[in-house]
């Protein structure tokens, strides 16, 4: 069964303090790994798709990387507006489009 585990559950950073969020996964054939940002009371906002080990994607202060077992979301010099819950999801090759989500990491960046 496809599974996603995210850590830590919550993270508090000072503004400018870089860190990484982890997403460990088990899936029968990875079709894609996805990172989303979710603000309180809103739906998940798409950030990145990664397809194969070694792939990296960047957007502003965020960089996502992928290995065969896990993905990292690196946040460089975060700002208070980066505070949100970051969700990781995988899509396996089981033939159906069922995205499996982790429980997310709640990030708080303090000014």
């Amino acid at each position: 069964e496809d599974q996603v585990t995210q850590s830590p559950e919550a993270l508090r950073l000072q503004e400018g303090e870089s860190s990484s969020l982890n997403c460990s996964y088990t899936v029968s054939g990875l079709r894609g790994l996805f990172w989303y940002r979710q603000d309180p009371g809103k739906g998940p906002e798409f950030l990145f798709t990664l397809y194969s080990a070694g792939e990296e994607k960047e957007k502003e202060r965020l960089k996502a990387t992928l290995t065969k077992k896990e993905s990292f979301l690196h946040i460089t010099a975060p700002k208070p507006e980066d505070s949100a819950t970051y969700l990781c999801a995988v899509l396996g090759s089981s033939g159906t489009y069922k995205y499996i989500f982790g429980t997310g990491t709640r990030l708080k960046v303090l000014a």
Partner: protein
Amino acid sequence: GAGVSQTPSNKVTEKGKYVELRCDPISGHTALYWYRQSLGQGPEFLIYFQGTGAADDSGLPNDRFFAVRPEGSVSTLKIQRTERGDSAVYLCASSSPGQGGTEAFFGQGTRLTVV
């Protein structure tokens, strides 16, 4: 439309009542998904449509839940005899897998409260 639209944004209903939640996907997206999210949890899969047909409904918790997409665009999630445990945010998403787009785009959700 520009994004996935869900109505209503909030719905409060009494235990035992019937509710309908609507989703209007991104124009041209053939795939549509319903997810449910409880506080502090990640989205949980309910059902996936490809076109008009439900390609995977394995996440529907029981037969009180039903979803339709009669013309391959707008979808309605229907919940009969609501229970307090049905309270959650119901999220809709759409994608275009046939055009290589594996990522799903979500709406803002419908917060359902059963009292």
